[in-house]
């Protein structure tokens, strides 16, 4: 089994440690079934979310990006999510301008006790991503007009592991 060579769609989740990561745990403890697309990166607070993470993830082909934190006014650090929501809304509105599908990015607020709500968030967003299919990313399949006389295939696709795997040598 090799996780790189399948057609699995992937959602990258950025969850704050105090609320939403706990909410996802709660959903697990309650055995609330969810589609298997999501991969969670734990961050201390949505205030840690640089909007660049969203852009970079989508540019390099993450099929979806989900950011979730404490409800506004419930931030463990008092105000982290107040800053975050401004930055996240800004990037949400910016994505379509550069041709990245804004439907692939969702941000929301889920508390540690809202297991059911977490299930709903993941299920609904996964359905959106299933509907949209694979994300072409940015520059992934761009035809570089001036492909130079190459020593090797150009690294543009980025995923060198896809070009050569240990097994192919």
């Amino acid at each position, binding site marked *: 089994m090799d996780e790189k060579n399948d057609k699995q769609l992937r959602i990258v989740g950025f969850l704050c440690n105090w609320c939403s990561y706990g909410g996802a745990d709660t959903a697990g403890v309650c055995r609330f079934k969810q589609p298997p697309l999501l991969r969670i990166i734990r961050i201390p607070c949505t205030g840690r979310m640089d909007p660049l993470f969203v852009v970079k993830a989508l540019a390099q082909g993450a099929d979806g990006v989900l950011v979730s934190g404490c409800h506004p006014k419930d931030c463990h650090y008092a105000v982290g999510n*107040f800053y975050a*929501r401004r*930055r996240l*809304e800004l990037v949400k509105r*910016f994505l379509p301008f*550069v041709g990245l599908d804004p439907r692939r990015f969702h941000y929301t607020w889920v508390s540690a006790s809202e297991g059911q709500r977490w299930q709903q968030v993941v299920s609904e967003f996964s359905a959106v991503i299933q509907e949209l299919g694979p994300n072409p990313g940015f*520059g992934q399949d761009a035809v570089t007009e001036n492909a130079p006389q190459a020593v090797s295939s*150009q690294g543009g696709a*980025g995923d060198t592991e896809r070009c050569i795997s240990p097994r192919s040598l």
Partner: protein
Amino acid sequence: MKTLHSHLEDHFEELELVIGWEIGFEPLRATPAFVRRREDLARLVWNPLCAPNLSVYLPQILKSAEKTEKKVAVCLKGCDTRSLTALIQEGFVDRERLHVIGLPCPGTVDPQALAQARKNRAPVTQVSFQDNLLILHSYEGTEEIPLDSVLARRCRRCRQPNPLLADVVLGDPVPARCDAPSFAHVEAVDSLPLEERRAYWERELDRCLRCYACRNACPLCVCRDRCLAESRTPKWTTQRDSVRDKFLFHMIHALHLAGRCTECGECERVCPVGIPVALFKEKMAQIALDLWDYQAGVDPAATPPLQTFDPSETGI
């Protein structure tokens, strides 16, 4: 430019340095001039060729300038004063050390557009300006070209031709071309289908050399030698000449300018390969206006929207 010269002549004793423009290596090029001697004042010019936004120099110059009673004089067009306002807002420039010469601006020339508008091919030997006309002399003869037909893109959407802050304003106020922020160029891109937008930017950014002229010409790109796009730790971009890495650099630039960009358009003016990079920041400005009714570089006392928050904000 009698008034500029006479003003500076009158005040030269109070000044350590004057930053203005002079004619460059050919008559159609105005280039920044740093004048430290009285006799060099005569070199200074002010006309629609004076495109560079001189506020970009101020943080560095003020840091290295000697701490004397004398001030640094800087010539700023209307839109340039917004950049200065933003720099003051963020504490990069000490207003007290400056002598700001505000210049109401009829618009600056886009060299590309001018080249296309010309019928003659011969090099221009002399330029003069009259009632919004550019009069170009060459051995093939004299041509008159209306300024309005060769304006830079930024000037066609100008709403700040007159200085916002200045110690002295030289010249009569100029009517703004746009009363309200105009995002027509952004909207043109937005009107494309999503896939085409991506293809458009992939095509445009493919040309990018990562020479970073756009970044270095940007008065609000305050990181200078510490730019994230060149950083290896943390490593956001690779050294590959890939469209995606170029894209990431431009996204870093755009996101760092979100809520801060004063739309001076320098990034786009200096791009050697004609990428309309200012559109990224114009889009950010449009979003900041929609979301927070915020315009950068207008109010020196305001806090940029991403540096603050509002608990009562709803809908986001």
